[in-house]
C-alpha cells in the first residue's frame, strides 16, 4: 500500500536528545531527535506499563521510560534485553528540516488494536 506522509513539524521543534508528541487518531506518537539529529517515531507507550516514552531521557539510540526505566530502542521500538516487548515504530521521512511521519507502523511489532 502507498504510504501517506503527514508533515508534523521541523527538526528545530524538537530539542536535541528530546522528544515531542503528535496526537494521532490511534493514540499519541512520540517523535524523538538524537544527538546526531536523527529522527525516530514510536507509539508513545512503553510496552511495560504504558509509560509515555516521549517524557523519557534520550541517550544514544535509545530512550529510558520515565516510569520504570525500561530502555527502548528508538529505531525498532524493541525493549533492550533482558526486558522484552516493543512499542510500534513509525516511518519518518526528512525533507531538509521538515519532518514527515507515516501513520502506518512498521512491521515486526504487534500494534495496539
Amino acid at each position: 500500500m502507498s504510504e501517506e506522509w503527514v508533515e508534523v513539524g521541523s527538526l528545530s521543534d524538537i530539542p536535541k536528545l528530546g522528544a515531542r508528541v503528535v496526537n494521532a487518531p490511534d493514540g499519541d506518537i512520540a517523535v524523538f531527535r538524537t544527538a546526531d539529529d536523527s529522527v525516530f517515531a514510536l507509539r508513545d507507550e512503553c510496552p511495560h506499563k504504558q509509560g509515555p516514552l516521549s517524557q523519557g531521557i534520550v541517550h544514544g539510540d535509545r530512550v529510558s521510560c520515565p516510569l520504570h526505566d525500561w530502555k527502548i530502542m528508538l529505531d525498532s521500538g524493541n525493549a533492550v534485553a533482558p526486558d522484552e516487548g516493543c512499542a510500534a515504530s513509525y516511518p519518518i521521512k526528512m525533507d531538509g528540516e521538515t519532518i514527515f511521519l507515516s501513520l502506518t507502523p512498521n512491521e515486526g511489532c504487534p500494534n495496539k488494536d
Partner: protein
Amino acid sequence: MKERLIVIGNGMAGMRTVEEILKLDADAYDITVFGAEPHGNYNRIMLSPVLAGDKTIDEIMINDEQWYVDNNITLYKGKTVVDINRKARKVIVDDGSEHEYDRLLIATGSNPFIIPLPGHDLDGVIAFRDIHDVDMMIEAAKNHQHAVVIGGGLLGLEAANGLMQQGMKVTVLHLVDTLMERQMDSAAGKMLRQSLEERGMEIIMPALTKEIVGKDRVEKVVLEDGREIEAGIVVMAVGIRPNIELAEKVGIHCERGIVVNDTMQTFDPRVYSVGECVQHRGETYGLVAPLFEMAKVCANHLVQHGIAQYEGSVTSTKLKVTGIDLFSAGDFTGDENTEELVFQDASRGVYRKLVIQDNKVKGAVMYGDTIDGSWYFDLMREQTDISDFREKILFGQAHLGDSGHGDENRIEMMADSAEICGCNGVSKGDIVNSININKLLTLEEVRAHTKASSSCGSCTGLVESLLAHTVGGDYSIAPHLKPVCACTEHTHDEVRKAIKDHELKSVRSAIEFLEWNTPDGCGKCRPALNYYVMCQYPDAESDDSQSRFINERAHANIQKDATYSVIPRMWGGGTTPTELRAIADVADKYKVETVHVTGGQRIGLYGLTKQELPEVWGDLNKAGLVSGHAYGKALRTVKTCVGKEWCRFGTQDSTQLGIDLEKMTWGSWTPHKYKMAASGCPRNCAEATIKDFGVVCVDSGYELHVGGNGGIKVRVTDLLTTVKTDAEVLEYAAAFMQIYREEAHYLERTAPWIERVGLAHVKENIVDDADNRKALAERFHFSQSFAQDDPWEARAKGAEKHEFEVMKNINA
C-alpha cells in the same frame, strides 16, 4: 588489521579481563586464548560446593564454548604455552605451533603447593585446585572410607567438608593450633573447631606430618609423634604459589609473582598480567575480588582508555561450608596501637571482634552471625569515623536507627516466598533462581534481570547479601569504587573532582573530557552530571533540561497514567483563605480528580495533563502561590508545629523559624530530596528527628538534628549540636545543606551519606570549624542567588513552550 591479543590462561582472571575488554570495545582486538584445562572457563571458587554436592559442574561454568564462538575468540583448550619469543612477539605452544601477538596477557594463576614429604607422589595424593581434583575426590569416596586433609586453612576445611558430604571419614591435620589462622583469631578458631567436630570431622593440631605411606596408592599418613592415620586419599591444601614459571623463563621480572605496575603492566610493556600469578606493590592475592578489580583496570588500559589504576585490594573472607558462618577482613590481630571491641556469646555460638585504630575499623572477625560483615567491611574500606556509634557497633547495623528490617535481614533464614523488593514485588526465590539460571555475578545484572532493588533501592543491601549467599561468599559484591553507571569507569567522587579541577561547565564537556563509553551517557548518569555541574558552577547557566528526569524538566510529578500533579509551596505549612480559594478555583476549573493533603503540610492537585500545567501555574501565581518543588531532588518542605505562638508547651517560635528556613532554602537543588522540620518543644510534633535537617526547640535554644529520613528504612537523626539563636540555626542549616550538596553522591540522601562519611566528619566541618561553616553558608547563599526563581512563573509566561505543547494534532 586489528591488533592481536593473546591470553595465556583460561581462568577467572584472564576471562574476566576479556569480558571487560569486550564491554569497553568489542572490536579492539583479535583475541586468542590458551587454556591448559580441557574446559571452558569455570568459577574456581565454587569447586567446594561441587565437591559437597550442592552444585554441579555445569552450574559453575561461567563461559561455555559457545561464548568464545559468539565473541569471535579463538580458544585453544588443553594446550599449554611453553615459550614466548618477546623479540618476535610470538608464543610457542606445546604442539609446536607459533602465534604472534601485539599484546600479551599472562593469567597463569597459581599452583597448589605440594609438601615434598616422602610419599607425596603416591597415587591418591592430590591438591584441591581444579575440576580434575574434584573428580578424583568424588571417585575416592566411592572406594575408600578415610580421607586425610593436610592443611586447616580455608581451602583445606572446604575440602574436608566436601569429602564428609561425600560420605568419608575425614581427618584434618594442621600445623599450628588455630584453624584458618590467617583469617581467624584463636577465640573464633576454637568455636569453628567445635562446630566442625560436632559434625564429625576429626581435627589434629598442631600436627606435623612425617610421611605418606602406601604401596602404589596411599594407605596411611604418619605423624612426627608416631601416630598413624588411615587414608584412602590425601588432599594437600597447604597454600598456593603464583605460577610464574613461564614468565621467569622468558626473562620477565618476577619476585614471588610476576611484578606489575598499577596498570597491570609487567616490565615488558607489551605484556600484561592479572590474577593470582601477579605481585602488585609487594602483595600477591588468592581471592576473587582482587582479581576482578585487576581485570577491570587491565582491560581499561588494553583498550587504551588509560585512566584506571589498581591500588591494591582490601579483602574479606567467608568460609563456604553450609551452616557455618564466619567472616574475616583486614588486620584482625592488631598491635600496640590498636584497640579491640569484642562480643562473645558462647552458648549462642556468636563471636565478633573488631580491631579499631583512631576510631576507624582496621579489621574484623565474626563467627556464628555474619550478617553485618559487609557493613563492617564497608566501614573499613571507607575508613569511616565510628566514634558516634562506637558503643553500638558490635550489635550491628540493625541497631543504628535503621528500624525498618532488623532481624528480617537474615536472608538465609528467609523463605523463598519472602518479598525482598517491595517496589517490584520480587521474592527471594525469584532472585535466587535468576542468579542461578542466568549466572549473574553482579548487583547490576540482578537488577537488570529481576528488577529487584532497581526502584527505591532500599533493598540493595538485601539483594547484595542474597547474591553473596547464592554465588559464593568471597565475591566482593560491592567493588571498592563504584562507577557512576555502566557508561564509565569513574566514580562519583572522581567525576566531581574532574568537573571542579578542569572547569567542566556542561554535561557534554564532562562526558567528553572523562571519555564516557557511550555517546551521550544514559538516564542514570546524565542527571547526576547535570547536578554536579550545576552545584559546582551555579552561575554558569549550565543546567541542561534534557539531562533532567521528566519531573524536574516539567516541574511537576509524573503519575502512573502520564498525568501530572501540582503542589504549590505553603511556607512552613501555613496558608491563607486567599491561597485556599485559588487552589479550590483551580481544582474546579481544571476538574482536578484528586485533591490531597500531602505528608509535607501542603495540598496536592492530581490528574492534570501536561498541556494544562502552564495555565494552572499562571492561575496559582496570581494568588501568590509558587512551585513547591515536590517533584525535584531539591528542598521539599519545612514542616512545623504552631510553637509558642499558640501551643501551651511551645518554647520558641518554631513556625516563624520554619518559614525563615524555607524562604532561605527553597529553589535549591540537592543530590536527593531534602526535607526539614522545626518542632516547638521536645514533644516534637513536626517529627524533626526523621528529617534531613530538623530543629527541636528547647527552652535554652535549639537542638539541630541531621541525617534522618522516614520511608522504608527509617533513620532517626543524629544530634549535630545545640545553638542559642535563630540566626545560628539559619547559618548551620545553610552550611549543612551546602556540605551535603558538595559531598554526597547524586541520589544519596543525607542518611546514607552521613553513615558513609561519619557524623564526626560533618561535625568537624560545621561545628568545630566556624570559618568553614561560614564559608559553606556563603557558598550556599551564592548558589541560591541564582536558584531562587519560581520555575512556574516563567513557564506560565511562555518559557519552554515546546515542553508543554504537542507538536502537531492530526486527529480528524
